[in-house]
């Protein structure tokens, strides 16, 4: 592939800029690259400057800004057999991004969906910040470049057909992966692809009113693969000779290996090698069963872990000490104080952490892994092996869930270390117990909120929280700091940026102020679906209910009165109507409402809860109304909102991780009580508000709204004021 020439470089600004609008790829058929910026530029126009800080309103904008300079390195290809190929520089974790992107391509190209192949791209370092999956930014970032790329491709195919037939392009139409003339002649895209390669026309993306694919519900394109067992995850890949490998790990968090006696393990059937690595002792064998049995036969003495003998209560008091004091004056009877605690939460994706690694004697390495940050993975793997970056290939494999977990590459580093040490390819898998006891977590948080009010009005809203620092050193953090530093932002921690650019009180509450203190504790953490909002906005939504009660107002009506955005009013009104808000319910049952705005999207949620057995509450129904801008696939959007609702239920009612004496107590789904059928609502209704502005984010959106609604419903049903989550812990 031809490398585009860097035309303008401005290293002082941290990001390399290239003027190329499109670049030609050495291929016999049509390939179209993304355009540099968001606008249809001409060759002569100046390099666009990145949006100014004032235009950057949230984290997704920051990520979009960071990704823009490499849009032109993404390539759409039309082959001679009419396959439309796009290598997606993102990870499919179940969010349906592959399907959504295929829909955008099919729409703008007038191609049949069946002809579109969206595959996950290997790590491509030249994409810089444009190969990260996170912050609900995938569609927000890719929407514009992908539809323009497809529109350009369509324009070139039409031009090629016009040349062939000696007609004007105006007469021609496109449909079903072919160009059609009024006289009935047609040429497939495959037949035109070679000619179209010579063209340079630009096409205009369609108006929303012309859409026939985008915005229409579609079953995910891999649904059949999923139900037939054909969908392959890292551990299913037939990599020749890859040895099943598991790692004996310390009893405490970040404990280290003291001494090892591997004699017994090595003598066990099927065992090929025992390797000590920084995180434990790896056993590679013919089967995972052989490896697991031998692992249990290892005699290892362990050194203490990184948090000594700390337990939850110690961490909680550290957080209480760290949280900033509330500053607003307490005026008698007109303020409300509330404190909240949220336990650690493990991502616990169904597919345990796993990586296939083949580190070869010739100094090259090939790695297959589900990664949200493959460029970062490639870099740290190369560093770990002391290889050149180019010597390491990272194949991105679909993930069996992520929720933020696969931003990190801990397991890949273990795999490459073992493979290098034993000179064989390995497939290293964590056991579920490994993932629970040594997984990364959403940190524990302590929140203090004070709201003051008078009459029917909220005068101030102060929110101070402290948490164990979220580890953001995975590429996304770098994207944030680099982009913001470039815009003259003071250099601070990525966490602070993340917090400031993602958190806002979406209501008119007078003087609003949110701030965070993060404490450094050597405990593995990672962004967890909805990151800071998961606890921040949940706590705030609980306070909104209590404020409404103090003021003698209905909680939904109160929100509608003070919500800032018009879309907020719309989703609240919609959810009120659809959920029959205020309906009569038997004793022990109640409804709860909450609202959240983030990623330029809005969602309101009403749940019905049956808490007649207060120790065993059941959310029986959830109704959500969302406005997320232009929807690509309503069916996929509904799935995301529904899935996040299950997370909201789990984190509020029953799922949390205990830290006991420097170790995680939970070991599997048996004691880590994530939502199961018996906890899930019988019915979930999603109402999507039709709007056509640019897509917002939606993958994480529903967590704070559902969590808040569940907590509020529980409070109303039981007459309690829940303050510590999960309620059953």
């Amino acid at each position: 592939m031809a490398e585009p020439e860097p035309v303008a470089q401005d290293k002082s600004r941290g990001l390399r800029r290239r003027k190329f609008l499109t670049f030609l790829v050495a291929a016999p058929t049509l390939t179209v690259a993304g355009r540099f910026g968001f606008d249809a530029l001409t060759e002569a126009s100046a390099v666009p400057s990145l949006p100014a800080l004032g235009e950057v309103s949230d984290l997704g904008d920051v990520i979009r800004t960071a990704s823009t300079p490499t849009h032109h390195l993404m390539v759409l290809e039309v082959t001679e057999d009419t396959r439309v190929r796009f290598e997606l520089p993102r990870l499919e974790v179940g969010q349906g991004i592959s399907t959504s992107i295929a829909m955008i391509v099919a729409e703008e190209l007038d191609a049949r969906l069946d002809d579109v192949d969206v595959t996950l791209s290997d790590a491509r370092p030249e994409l810089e910040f444009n190969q990260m999956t996170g912050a609900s930014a995938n569609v927000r970032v890719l929407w514009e470049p992908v539809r323009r790329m497809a529109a350009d491709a369509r324009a070139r195919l039409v031009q090629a057909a016009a040349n062939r037939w000696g007609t004007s392009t105006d007469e021609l139409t496109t449909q079903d992966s072919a160009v059609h003339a009024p006289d009935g002649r047609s040429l497939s895209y495959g037949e035109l692809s070679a000619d179209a390669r010579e063209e340079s026309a630009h096409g205009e993306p369609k108006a929303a009113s012309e859409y026939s694919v985008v915005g229409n519900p579609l079953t995910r394109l891999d649904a059949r693969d999923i139900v037939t067992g054909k969908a392959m995850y890292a551990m299913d890949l037939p990599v020749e000779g890859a040895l099943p490998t598991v790692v004996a790990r310390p009893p405490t968090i970040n404990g280290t290996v003291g001494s090892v006696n591997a004699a017994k393990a090595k003598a066990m059937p099927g065992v090929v090698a025992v390797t000590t690595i920084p995180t434990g002792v790896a056993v590679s064998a013919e089967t995972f069963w052989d490896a697991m049995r031998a692992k249990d036969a290892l005699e290892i003495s362990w050194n203490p872990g990184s948090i000594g003998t700390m337990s939850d209560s110690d961490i909680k008091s550290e957080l209480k000490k760290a949280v900033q004091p509330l500053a607003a004056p307490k005026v008698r009877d007109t303020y409300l104080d509330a404190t909240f605690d949220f336990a650690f939460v493990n991502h616990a994706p169904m597919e345990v952490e796993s990586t296939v690694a083949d580190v070869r004697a010739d100094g090259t390495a090939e790695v297959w892994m589900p990664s949200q940050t493959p460029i970062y993975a490639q870099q740290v793997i190369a560093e770990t092996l002391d290889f050149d970056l180019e010597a390491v290939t990272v194949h991105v494999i679909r993930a069996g869930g992520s929720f933020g977990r696969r931003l990190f590459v801990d397991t890949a580093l273990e795999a490459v270390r073992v493979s290098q040490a034993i000179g064989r390819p390995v497939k290293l898998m964590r056991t579920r117990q490994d993932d629970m006891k040594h997984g990364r977590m959403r940190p524990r948080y302590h929140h203090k909120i004070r709201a003051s009010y008078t009459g029917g009005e909220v005068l101030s809203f102060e929110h101070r929280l402290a948490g164990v620092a979220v580890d953001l050193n995975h590429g996304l953090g770098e994207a944030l700091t680099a982009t913001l530093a470039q815009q003259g932002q003071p250099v601070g921690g990525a966490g602070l940026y993340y917090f400031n650019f993602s958190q806002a009180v979406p209501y008119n509450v007078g003087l609003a102020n949110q701030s965070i203190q993060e404490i450094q504790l050597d405990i593995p953490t990672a962004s967890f679906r909805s990151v800071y909002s998961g606890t921040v906005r949940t706590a705030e939504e609980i306070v909104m209910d209590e404020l409404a009660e103090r003021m003698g107002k209905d909680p939904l009506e109160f929100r509608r009165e003070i919500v800032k955005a018009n879309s907020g009013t719309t989703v609240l009104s919609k959810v009120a109507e659809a959920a029959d808000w205020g309906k009569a319910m038997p004793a022990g049952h109640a409804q709860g409402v909450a609202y959240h705005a983030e990623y330029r999207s809005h969602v309101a949620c009403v749940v019905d809860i049956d808490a007649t057995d207060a120790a065993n509450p059941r959310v029986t129904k959830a109704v959500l109304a969302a406005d997320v801008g232009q929807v690509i696939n309503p069916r996929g959007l509904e799935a995301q909102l529904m899935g996040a609702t299950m997370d909201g239920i789990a984190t509020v009612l029953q799922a949390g991780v205990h830290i006991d004496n420097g170790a995680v107590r939970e070991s599997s789904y048996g004691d880590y009580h994530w939502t199961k059928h018996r906890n899930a609502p019988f019915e979930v209704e999603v109402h999507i508000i039709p709007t056509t502005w640019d897509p917002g984010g939606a993958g994480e959106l529903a967590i704070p709204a559902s969590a808040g609604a569940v907590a509020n419903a529980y409070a109303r049903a039981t007459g309690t004021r829940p303050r510590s989550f999960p309620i059953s812990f």
Partner: protein
Amino acid sequence: MPKKFKFFVNGERVEVDAEADMPLLWVLRDKLGVTGPKYGCGVGVCRACTSHLDGEEVQPCVVPVSECQNKKVTTIEGLANGEELHPVQQAWVDADVGQCGFCQPGQIMAAVALLKRTQQPTDADIDAIENMCRCGTYPRMRTAIKAAAAMPPQKPGGGKPTEQPRGNGPKQPAAQQQPQQTTSAPKPSDGQSSGGEEDSGTLLDGIGSAFG
């Protein structure tokens, strides 16, 4: 000491050398290359590995291979009849259940087993399904299970499963209405067969004779 174990996997006769206590899951995945059943916990709680043994739901991660001797193992790969999806699979596609998909082979095998035990499962029956889905697809699974239960019995003659929900109710399996697929289905000689994989009797097509 490794022993020889003989059984059927998705209608195919297999022979493996394994320790008697080796879990079926690892025999399937690491010795036979059958990767549909997923590892999610290894202790029988996540149920991502759920498959059928002589038509009964099992968690292969806690079933020693010695218990499979002469029996019929059905994994997700063996559920469809060639290109024609099993009605539960079709209901799953129709409801667009899967997200990451990792739990789904186990979910579908559990749902097939449930529908075999209970033709019209109640919400309480569905609540009793222990399979974990971390992506939270439960509401769509509930819809799909109910849709599969409501599908009219499959008409003879086959055809492509398309828009129209169709298929067999649990008590009237397709296989029994498609003679070419049932007549050759043997019963394992141990006599403990539950009568085979009713919902996927077609899987046994091609098995010559019982062994043992």
